[in-house]
Each structure stands twice: as structure tokens, then as C-alpha cells.
């Protein structure tokens, strides 16, 4: 291909896609001869291709799973794991809902736990002073990283959830659903709340009854005060690709610009320290996952990276 110096193939998560797209768009400005392509086949689909050596970089909205690590060993593929942004999860209700002032993790658990299925169906079962109205739940599609994360954070175990709620992969559908349902409650990516503020009412979260009710904002998410509903997003780089100069250039560019671009596209930047440490990792071709055998919920990226650097 005539004028191109090199190709970078990226695929994977739809949640990370906007950031990678933005980075690639900017990268095109400075290195137009490098052909960067980005696909959206989901985190699972991305890893599948990644582990078959079909792509250089995989976007992921969750850390690589055990079975995927297993496969990487079998196929002899080294990967470098780099967190690139946060995705805050917003809990929202209809603006017509006047009684919900905040929710505790405990209450969210009561709403969403598997035991509540067909049992907790009315608002007054959550708090007796709330009206005796049906509780209609909207949430992430069960094959998404958001679902895995939310269930782990709220119910203590990934995929542990009641099943009688309206699920969708597409957060715009959930927005649509809850905005017209007085008795509805939904969780989805923070950006979807930000873009639909007028149609929704944001619910602040208390970790427990004593603590303060925190609204998710860029600030509270980045600093880790909004707990436990913020999850990190990653890119995974094939070690062999990481040795190619223009890919090194790209990753460097990615980490330098991720913070600014994340704000622009509506997700949350990580602390700048995290980008620095990640770049070190990349330069040293440090493979493996910092989340192997660790829960991702409430994890402090900075600590984990420091630990790992030792």
C-alpha cells in the first residue's frame, strides 16, 4: 500500500472505542502515513482476535479474564495491560420521581440481588416511607462488562443479579426506558446521563448509611470518592507489536493525550500518575495483568501499579 508506512489494527470494546477513536484521529494529524483502524467487536471479541495474533491492540472494558490469560499462555502471546480511563456508572430515576434522595449500596443490593427476584418489586420494600409503587429496573445487557462490574460491586459477585429487569446493550435504550417510567430506576455509563440531564434524575450513592451521599462527577470518579461504581478501562498491547517503533509512538501518544480526550468524549480521565506509571510499564514491556486473582471493584489503580513496579 503505496504511501503507508505501517498499520495498527485495534479492536474490542465498544465502551473504549470513543477514546481510541479520538486518539487515533489526533494521531492521524501528526502521523498521517500510519494506518490506524479500530473495530468494535466487544471486549470478548477483541480478546479473541488478540489471542489469535490478529490485532495489535485490544480495547477492553474489563481486565483480561482467567481463561483468556490461559489461552495467551498456550498461544504464547505476551500482552501489556494499560488502563486508559474511567467509566463512571450513574444510577438514575425519572425526573418525576420526587422521593428518591439517595441510595445506599445496601439498598442497591436489595434491589438487584438474585434473591430479590420476583420478591422485591415495590419501592416501599426498599424504604418503608417510599410509596407503594412498582419498582421497574433497567440495566446493562448481561453480556456486557458493565453488567459484570455492577453485579460484582453491588452484589459481591460478578454476574450475580436478579433476572427480571429490562436489559440492553445500548444505553440510549435504557435512557429512553427510564426517562418515561416514573417508577423506573436504571444504571448506565455516566456520559449517557451527562448528555440527557434534562430527561433524568441522578441519584447520589452512599457506601454505607453513615457516609456521605456522593454524586458521580469527573472529579469524584477520578479521585475515587465515588464508590464503588467506577470501573477502569484498558487497552492491551501485543508484546511483539510493542517492539514496532510506530506502535510505540502511538501508545506514547495515547497515554499523553488520553486525559484530555477522555474529558472531551465524556468519559473520565485517570490520575496523571497512572498514565505515567503505565507508560513505564509499556516501555519496559512489562507483561501480565495487575488484576490476576484480584477483584477489580474498589481497586486502587495507583497502588496496584506501584506494587507491580516493585
Amino acid at each position, binding site marked *: 500500500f503505496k504511501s503507508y508506512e505501517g498499520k495498527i489494527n485495534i479492536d474490542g*470494546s*465498544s465502551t473504549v472505542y470513543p477514546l481510541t477513536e479520538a486518539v487515533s484521529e489526533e494521531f492521524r494529524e501528526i502521523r498521517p502515513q500510519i494506518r490506524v483502524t479500530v473495530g*468494535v*467487536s*466487544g*471486549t*470478548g*471479541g477483541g*480478546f*479473541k482476535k488478540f489471542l489469535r495474533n490478529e490485532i495489535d491492540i485490544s480495547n477492553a*472494558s*474489563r481486565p483480561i*479474564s482467567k*481463561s*483468556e490469560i490461559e*489461552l495467551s499462555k498456550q498461544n504464547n502471546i505476551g500482552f501489556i495491560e494499560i488502563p486508559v480511563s474511567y467509566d463512571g456508572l450513574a444510577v438514575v430515576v425519572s425526573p418525576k420521581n420526587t422521593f428518591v434522595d439517595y441510595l445506599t449500596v445496601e439498598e442497591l443490593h436489595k434491589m438487584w440481588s*438474585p434473591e430479590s427476584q420476583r420478591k422485591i418489586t415495590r419501592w416501599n420494600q426498599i424504604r418503608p416511607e417510599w410509596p407503594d409503587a412498582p419498582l*421497574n429496573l433497567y440495566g446493562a*445487557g*448481561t*453480556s*456486557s*462488562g458493565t*453488567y*459484570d462490574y455492577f*453485579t460484582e460491586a453491588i*452484589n459481591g*459477585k*460478578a*454476574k*450475580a*443479579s436478579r*433476572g*427480571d*429487569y*429490562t*436489559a*440492553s*446493550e*445500548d444505553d440510549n*435504550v435504557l435512557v*429512553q*426506558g427510564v426517562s*418515561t*417510567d416514573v417508577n*423506573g430506576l436504571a444504571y448506565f455509563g455516566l456520559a449517557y446521563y451527562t448528555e440527557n440531564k434534562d430527561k433524568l434524575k441522578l441519584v447520589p450513592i452512599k457506601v454505607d448509611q453513615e457516609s456521605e451521599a456522593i454524586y458521580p462527577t469527573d472529579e469524584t470518579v477520578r479521585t475515587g470518592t465515588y464508590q464503588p461504581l467506577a470501573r477502569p478501562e484498558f487497552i492491551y498491547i501485543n508484546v511483539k507489536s510493542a517492539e514496532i517503533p510506530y506502535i510505540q509512538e502511538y501508545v506514547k501518544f495515547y497515554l499523553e493525550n488520553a486525559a484530555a480526550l477522555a474529558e472531551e468524549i465524556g468519559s473520565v480521565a485517570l490520575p496523571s500518575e497512572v498514565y505515567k506509571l503505565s507508560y513505564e510499564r509499556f516501555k519496559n514491556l512489562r507483561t501480565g495483568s495487575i488484576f490476576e486473582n484480584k477483584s477489580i471493584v474498589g481497586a486502587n489503580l495507583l497502588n496496584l501499579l506501584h506494587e507491580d513496579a516493585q
Partner: protein
Amino acid sequence: MANSSRKSEKLIELIMIACSLISVLTTLGIILVLSIDTIKFFAEVSFFDFITDTQWTPLFADKHFGILPLLAGTILTTIIATLVAVPVGISIAVYLNEYASKKFTATVKPILEILAAIPTVVYGFFALQFVTPLLQLLIPSLSGFNALSPGIVMGIMIIPYITSLSEDALRAVPKSLREASYGLGANKLQTAFKVMVPAASSGIIVSIILAISRALGETMIVAIAAGQQPNLTLNPLKSVETITTYIVQVSMGDVPQDSLEYRTIFAAGITLFAFTFILNNISFWIQKKYQNRYD
């Protein structure tokens, strides 16, 4: 000359056989691709549970692998779509063929064909944002996500399959039959349904099969507007999930691809395949039986 023309005839026939066999190869390919993972799936999940369990929760902590809820959702939405599309589609075809002027037909037929060209994402949001609220005015108990609304919209989407192909079939009925019918004093309605439709039955049935097949395979509309809840119900007012929706959802999601969760889509896929296979065989049987009598 004679020999060479014979040879080229033979060659053309061989090429055509090869073309026909591609469809067989496709089927084999699909079955093969689906069965490898399905076999692995059934190594971990009992077949009996698969067909008798009333819950489908492979992506939940408490896993159940009963296909029935998905099958029910598939059947339910397809039936609703068929109930909308068949009477409407055939009536339009008959109207265009028997009642309307040539000009009207020549204009309306292609316009209706646009319905088949609209991306299904559009239909999905149409069902969710337009049809569901409208239906809720009539049926207050209707939940925001339900089988009825996407079913109706799917029906609208497949109308042109039925209308266009049926109208072609009606058009192909010899004029002399229509004249014979009118000559006996039959009115348009009688001519249409007692003479033309029976004479074009084969084409009409094919159009219906094609349309139903399209509805069975449809994904986005249901994914957006039905709520993705695998409920074992035939109540159109409830939220449901179909096999195809489930397959797309998982195959494009975050699920690790060498896991049991991921393999569920192959088992579900093969179920759908078997289901359509049975359906097609039944309709073929009906068609053949009907046709043999007077062709």
C-alpha cells in the same frame, strides 16, 4: 457442432448444479460451525435440562440453560409479526393486482419495497419511541418493553416481502382465468380470492415463508424494543428475548469466547436452525400436498 453444443449444455448444467450445491455447503458449514461448540456445550450441560428447564440465565451467577423462554420469545414475536404482515401484505397484493389501476400499482409497489430497505435499527427505535407509547394509550397495562410492539413493527418490515412476491405471483396468473371468473358474474373479491389467489398459491406461500423466515432471523428490532428478558411467556404485553437477540448480544459483548457462556449461542443457534427446519418441512409438505392436486 452438435457435439459441442451438447457439451456446453452439459457444462452449463454442471455449473448450475455447482451453484445449487453452494446452498447445501452453506447449510453444512452452518451446521458444522454450530455443532463443534454445541457438542462442547452439551458436554457440560445436560440436553434434558436444555429442553425442559424453564429459565435461561447463562450469564447470571445462578446459571440455568433452559432454551424454552428464548424459543417462546422467538415464536411469540414471529407470530405477532406474521399476524400483522400476512393479512395486510396479501390484502395489499390483491388490491394492487385486482382493484387498483396499473399506474397506482406501479407507483405503490416500489414505494412499499422501501420498507424492506430501512435499517432495522431505525425500526427498533420506532417501536420503542413511537409504537410502544401509542399502544400504551390503548393498553395501559403494557410495559415499556414488550413483545407486541417489536412484533408489530417487524410485521410492518416484512410486508413488502409478502406484497411484492405475491403480487408477482398474482400477475403471472393467466388473464384468461380472470376473464372466465368475471364472465361468470364473479365480482372482484370473488375473482381475487376464489380464482386468482388459489392459482397463485404457490408463489404466495413462498412469499409468506420467506417473510416469516425474515422475522425469525430479525435481531435489532427485538433487541431494542422487547427488553431482553428471557421470560417463558406467550403474553405479548410482557418483555421477552428471542434466540437471535441473545446470539447477537453475546457474540458482540464482553463474554470471553472460549467459555461455556459463549458456547450457549451455538446451542441456541442450532435450536433455531432445527426449529426453522421443522417449520419449513411442514410448510413444504402443505405446499406439495396442495399443489399436487391441480398442477
